């Protein structure tokens, strides 16, 4: 028999679990249910990031404009989580999926299976071997070259450079890094090769000392920046290629009193990065247009589902080019970003 004390305790636990369960409300669909049979479209990202929140604003805006049921799914646990999401979407009878494959080569089979049941396009990172109908995004190699150009502008007499990136498994990060390296070293366009991660590369008056990855562990990302500053006291420039890298580098620079002395070239539009550009501690950043990735993905899928394949460009690539943001255009860029985000809410 249970003592009254243990019964009280069990009741307390029950209450606690109820109240915790109450925190997890299901997300409201972007278009009210019961408006007839709406086209169901899913926008699957490659992870969870503020970048994808902006894309999700584009998805919502397109869903409203085109009157479709579109949702954004962000896999938190990598490739297996993304696979599970796509499989579940197919089970639910989704009409169209836009996906940013984490490992394009090895996910080709999954994309092909999905393409038999629904209209499938890729965004942000392509899977060119698969049966996807279209790729929406930018050329990461070209965007990387923009980054490299900013490094050369920041250091006209050359110098040493260190590259920081989350991980190099995915196609877009490989190409972004390669573009940066090729532009710094003054090599001609060649997006098909890949310089070894540990290789020290020299040319054009520059020395690229290496690439450090952190696998999304921010404490590790900051430690990488600190260790690079310790290892190379005369480091000229640091390049942060994933959205969260530049803010971590800024922290490391601030703590070693090297803000502004060591140049920092960034990628993506983290708030701290944009603040740094305004203050002059960041040379500039290359931004993609995630809002348009979201918007165009829904627009193209909606057209494909309605049987209008004519909208797809013949080369099956819809280019949404990257832009360079520097001190002169950062304020304008921020206000544009803000108005898009608030319009979606």
């Amino acid at each position, binding site marked *: 028999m249970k003592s009254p004390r243990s019964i009280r305790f069990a009741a307390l636990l029950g209450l606690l679990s109820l109240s915790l369960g109450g925190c997890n409300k299901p997300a409201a669909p972007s278009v009210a249910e019961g408006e007839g049979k709406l086209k169901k479209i899913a926008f699957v990202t490659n992870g969870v990031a503020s970048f994808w929140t902006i894309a999700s604003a584009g998805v919502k805006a397109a869903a409203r404009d085109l009157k479709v049921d579109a949702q954004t799914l962000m896999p938190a646990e990598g490739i297996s989580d993304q696979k599970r999401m796509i499989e579940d979407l197919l089970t639910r009878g989704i009409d169209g999926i836009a996906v940013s494959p984490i490992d394009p080569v090895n996910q080709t089979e999954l994309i092909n299976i999905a393409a038999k049941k629904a209209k499938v396009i890729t965004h942000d990172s392509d899977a060119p071997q698969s049966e996807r109908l279209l790729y929406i995004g930018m050329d990461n190699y070209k965007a990387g070259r923009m980054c490299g150009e900013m490094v050369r502008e920041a250091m006209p007499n050359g110098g040493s450079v260190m590259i920081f990136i989350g991980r190099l498994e995915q196609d877009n990060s490989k190409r972004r890094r390669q573009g940066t390296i090729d532009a710094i070293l003054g090599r001609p366009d060649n997006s098909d090769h890949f310089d070894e991660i540990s290789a020290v590369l020299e040319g054009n008056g520059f020395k690229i000392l290496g690439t450090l990855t952190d696998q999304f562990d921010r404490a590790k990302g900051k430690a990488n920046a600190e260790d690079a500053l*310790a290892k190379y006291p005369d480091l000229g420039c640091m390049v942060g290629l994933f959205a*969260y890298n530049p803010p971590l580098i800024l922290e490391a620079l601030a703590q070693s009193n090297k803000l502004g002395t060591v140049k920092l070239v960034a990628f993506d539009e983290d708030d701290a990065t944009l603040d740094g550009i305004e203050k002059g501690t960041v040379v500039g950043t290359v931004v993609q247009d995630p809002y348009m990735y979201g918007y165009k993905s829904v627009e193209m899928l909606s057209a494909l589902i309605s049987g209008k394949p004519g909208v797809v460009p013949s080369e099956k690539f819809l280019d949404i080019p990257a832009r360079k943001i520097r001190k002169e255009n950062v304020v304008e860029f921020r206000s544009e970003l803000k108005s898009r985000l608030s319009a979606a809410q």
Partner: protein
Amino acid sequence: MKKIFGILGLLIAVCLVTASLSDSFLSAYNVENVLRRSALFGILSIGVAFVIITGGIDLSLGSVVCLVGCALPWLLTVQHWPVPLALLAVVALSLGIGLFHGLLITKLRIQPFIVTLCGLLLYRGIARGFTADQTVGFGNEFKSLRLLATGKVPFFPGFDLPAPLLFLAVVAILAAVFLNRTIYGRYLLALGRNPQAATYSGISTQRMTILAYVVSSGLAGLGGVLFVLDVNSAQPVDFGSFYELYAIAAAVLGGCSLRGGEGSIVGVLVGAALMQVLRNMITLVTTRNNVEFAIIGAVILLGVVADELTRRIAAKRRAAQVLQGATAA
């Protein structure tokens, strides 16, 4: 005490090798960085050591780091709570989590592995829920609060002590005094060695167990606060991920037995420092940090094997000497 000589030797060896291969290893800047990181992980490791000494395990502490690390900037920058109230809330939250674990383990007799594994899922899930998966951080504000983690105390010209090291010093001294100089520390060790015997000797084992989990979660909370103040941003999906394993590894390396009843605070500190020096060494000495885990795993395994072998050889020698002495007599 003997048990930590091996790991201390390994730490010194790794430091010597790194210093000989890299000029920057002993630079003031790098030493400060390594001390700060070791202090942050050291705080987590001391917490989990308390639980391991009782024969339990705490798998939730990486998620507690995440929950607290996300809650603090969220309360301050999104909910606009005043600093003292937000700090009080996260302290209460982390101690409350420990109490919750302790009660489930002692009163309902659920296995610590299950309780804290569910905690691992629960707290990260809650953090992801209230932040809606958004990165939270302090931006350019709360500079004076952030000094708790980023501040430095001048030690001698050209070398400052990072603030987290002072936190670690206080925590470590309190923990060591508690464990070695108070009756409650003895109770904790006795409970880990033989819970039944401890109960029959009149020790309130349930209270001691609950205390251990409260200390573990409380220090994980302190670690979470310091981590987020140091890094300045937290993404609930990956913040503090796997930190429980670093902490458990440091505690076990430092002489805590996973079967309970053994452990020293100095050993835990050496274990935590070893992990961070190894990570630092890989970046300073090599140009490939993707083999980091392989190197850490291999060095630690080699160290533990060498430690075990030397101990066996020493034991054999001692036995042989005793035998010789006996025959001579």
